């Protein structure tokens, strides 16, 4: 509540600051704007920035650290009996305090000390919010008055405002880098914790996957096994099926659309592929699980084959359909990038259209097409919903497309869905798989993008 109030006050103060700065700048030269170093609106922006920016930074900093800070204060006030546990007990205690504070039932009778701590947490939180409101307003008003006092015909307001904006732009463009760093760090950090329990070589080359860990030491099957080879094999099988559908269909569709189809036909065909590309993956997953899989099973059974109801074929086929527009639009780009002069030269020698395409256009476009296929493979490997809904969960090491297989993404999704403790090898193994997935897709993308770029420059 207080935070919303603060944001509204800040917004008001910046607007007021803009008006003040503007009118004061005009007044300082008695209306002869020519004598100002910067136009009046820059003076306005200058004051507005001073009013809004420092308080906003404080607000962002507070929002990021408040929960942690308050929790530390609460924990330091608790008796040693509760706090002196290992990291896990401490985490549990934190969760209990938070749950009590937010009125979530914890299911067991809470310790009176913990109840008191929860109340303290709420109190400190409220105190923090109120002090933020007061301090934020003070800083904003102080900044506004300071900047207003500095308004002067010679003030280089434009340069200052533009420098600030420039810095903001740089920070925005760094967000993408930060995201990548965040991905790499979070995957690495959790994966290292996983590899402390499970040998990386066993993980990468083991052939048995059953991530169930026993809760108690004496339980049957107490050690899970984390050999990821069956997952990699399953992923490759489904990706292979998807590519067997998507590459020929997508490529031929691209060739037909760019070389054969009349403009009228193309205006009809292009949207069809675009719609196919725009359908959410969960819809494909539903289609694969409820329409395609039973169809494939019944078809196989009528032919006397035994087909699993979660066959790799159904999931792979639907994934292939999903990737058709991806392959065709990328190939379309590279085919169109082949210069017309190559085609004309071929026609001039008397080649038919298909001969020109097969013997001239496609070889010229080959690097681009290979890159497109690599991007499509990377996309198929990383696709989650179709396989989660339509492929199996048991890790079979098989090359039979009629069997059920599981994939890397399916396992990540099933390992992490639902409530889980954060430091069991079972949960952490998902991050190990995520790391492998990230490295593989990143490599494919990097190589493919490099090839596309190089190739594009060739004909430019």
């Amino acid at each position, binding site marked *: 509540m207080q935070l919303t109030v603060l944001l509204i006050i800040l917004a008001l103060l910046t607007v007021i600051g803009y008006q003040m700065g503007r009118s004061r700048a005009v007044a300082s030269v008695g209306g002869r704007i020519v004598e100002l170093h910067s136009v009046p609106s820059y003076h306005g922006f200058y004051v507005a920035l001073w009013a809004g920016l420092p308080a906003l930074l404080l607000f962002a900093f507070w929002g990021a650290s408040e*929960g942690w800070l308050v929790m530390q204060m609460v924990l330091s006030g608790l008796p040693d009996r509760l706090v002196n546990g290992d990291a896990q007990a401490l985490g549990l205690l934190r969760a209990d305090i938070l749950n009590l504070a937010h009125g979530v039932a914890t299911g067991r009778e809470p310790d009176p000390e913990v109840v008191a701590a929860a109340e303290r947490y709420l109190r400190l939180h409220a105190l923090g919010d109120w002090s933020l409101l007061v301090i934020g307003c003070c800083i904003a008003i102080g900044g506004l008055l300071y900047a207003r006092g500095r308004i002067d015909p010679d003030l280089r307001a434009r340069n200052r405002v533009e420098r600030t904006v*420039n810095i903001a732009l740089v920070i925005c463009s760094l967000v*993408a880098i930060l995201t990548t760093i965040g991905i790499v760090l979070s995957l690495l950090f959790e994966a290292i914790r996983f590899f402390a329990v499970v040998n990386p070589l066993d993980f990468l080359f083991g052939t048995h996957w059953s991530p169930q860990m026993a809760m108690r030491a004496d339980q049957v099957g107490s050690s899970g096994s984390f050999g990821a080879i069956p997952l990699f094999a399953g992923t490759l099988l489904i990706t292979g099926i998807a590519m067997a559908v998507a590459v020929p269909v997508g490529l031929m569709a691209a060739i037909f659309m760019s070389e054969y189809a009349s403009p009228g036909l193309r205006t009809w065909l292009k949207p069809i592929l675009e719609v196919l590309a725009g359908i959410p993956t969960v819809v494909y997953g539903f289609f694969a699980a409820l329409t395609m899989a039973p169809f494939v099973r019944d078809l196989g059974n009528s032919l006397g084959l035994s087909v699993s109801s979660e066959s790799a074929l159904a999931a792979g086929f639907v994934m292939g359909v999903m990737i058709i*527009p991806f392959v065709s639009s990328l190939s379309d780009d590279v085919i169109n990038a082949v210069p017309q002069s190559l085609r004309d030269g071929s026609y001039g020698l008397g080649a*038919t259209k298909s001969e020109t395409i097969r013997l001239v256009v496609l070889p010229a476009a080959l690097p681009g097409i290979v890159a497109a296929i690599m991007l499509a493979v990377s996309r198929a490997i*990383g696709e989650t*919903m179709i396989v989660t809904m339509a492929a199996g969960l048991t890790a079979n090491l098989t090359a039979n497309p009629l069997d059920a297989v599981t994939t890397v993404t399916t396992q990540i999704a099933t390992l*992490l869905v639902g409530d889980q403790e954060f430091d069991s090898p079972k949960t952490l193994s998902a991050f190990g798989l995520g790391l492998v*997935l990230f490295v593989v897709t990143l490599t494919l993308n990097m190589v493919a*993008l490099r090839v596309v770029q190089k190739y594009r420059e060739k004909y430019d």
Partner: protein
Amino acid sequence: MSVAVTKSRYQSEEFSARLRRRYAAERRFRIAGMLAVGIASLMLVVLLGSIVSKGYTAFWQAQIRLEVTLDKQQVEERNYTALVRQALYAQVPAATDRATRRLLNDLLSSGAPYELEAMVNANPSIVGTTQTVWVRADDEIDQFMKGFIRRDVPEAERRLSDVKIAAIDALVAKGSIRSTFNTTLFTAGDSREPEQAGILGAVVGSALTLVVTMLLSVPIGIAAAVYLEEFAPKNRWTDLIEVNINNLAAVPSIIFGLLGLAVFLGFFGLPRSAPLVGGLVMALMTLPVIIIASRVALKAVPPSIREAALGVGASPLQTVTHHVLPLALPGILTGTIIGMARALGETAPLLMIGMVAFIVDIPGGLTDSATAIPVQIYMWADSPERAFTERTSAAILILLAFLILMNGLAVFLRKKFERRW
């Protein structure tokens, strides 16, 4: 006088055979192309067709008419279940013994007493009178009325017993069962009972998520694109940023989910299942899309505009904000809407951050537990009831309607403001 006609070698038998073969190859190639396009179109038709044919019935719902006598004492004891059941028994006088009546209880949705209670609460003056109310039928009755449970299969294999079917027949004969537009689907949250389940909670969850996504990714994305396209010096740093953005655009979405789980939930301790976290993750995911689209739009603005602005003394920032950005805005907007549409359909990252949960309440804020439309589809698709299959397809149709709306808007904007220089 006759001229000896010697056939040139261009008219020889071998030549025409070769030519025929080449033309045949040409035709085959062309047909292969048509076939590819045909397969793609066919799959689209099959996909949409199967979903529409499975889903359109979910927009109707069977209701049963009851003549409820709102006995004062029963109302005060909030004994609406008994009231509803008595009214039902009155509708089917043939059922007299306890066993049959117990079966009859299943004809009504378990939510029927609550419907009645809500009606009484809204208008307390009806207590003591007899009212005609239409309450929702149980999902199996609904499926039977729609013909998905067939009466010609043996009773043991049917989900409805003969007794119930007889009761339904009696109700139909009296005109006490009707099929109405299924408003529950649009006004309720999730439920374990198909006839009480609705999509509204998920729609609100998706809307909250998208608002967060938009507020973060649009300004940051446009700012980053402006910097990279207009101000950035050409050096190794900016090259790195560029490569990085292109790669991020191709990172699997589930990886972003892992990032959200480890950083936003694990490190910052934000609440699970919250649209706030979902929005943050989606923002990081759509950011590259928006940056790339915005850069294309900025690139399309001819340099002469910039040169003219700089020539009359505008600063670089003024050039961009006064001239380049307004001209590129339609293109940026189109790219943004398409990015948002993609975020709306995305499921995998939301599974990672716990937005896959059974949530009955409609979320009221950014930190409430919520789901999103695609996640709701995912969860309903797992439910065994036939009625949920139907509702899953209906939810997909609703999701597709939103997507068509957004993409239509993007196309409209492109058509209206597109400018060729």
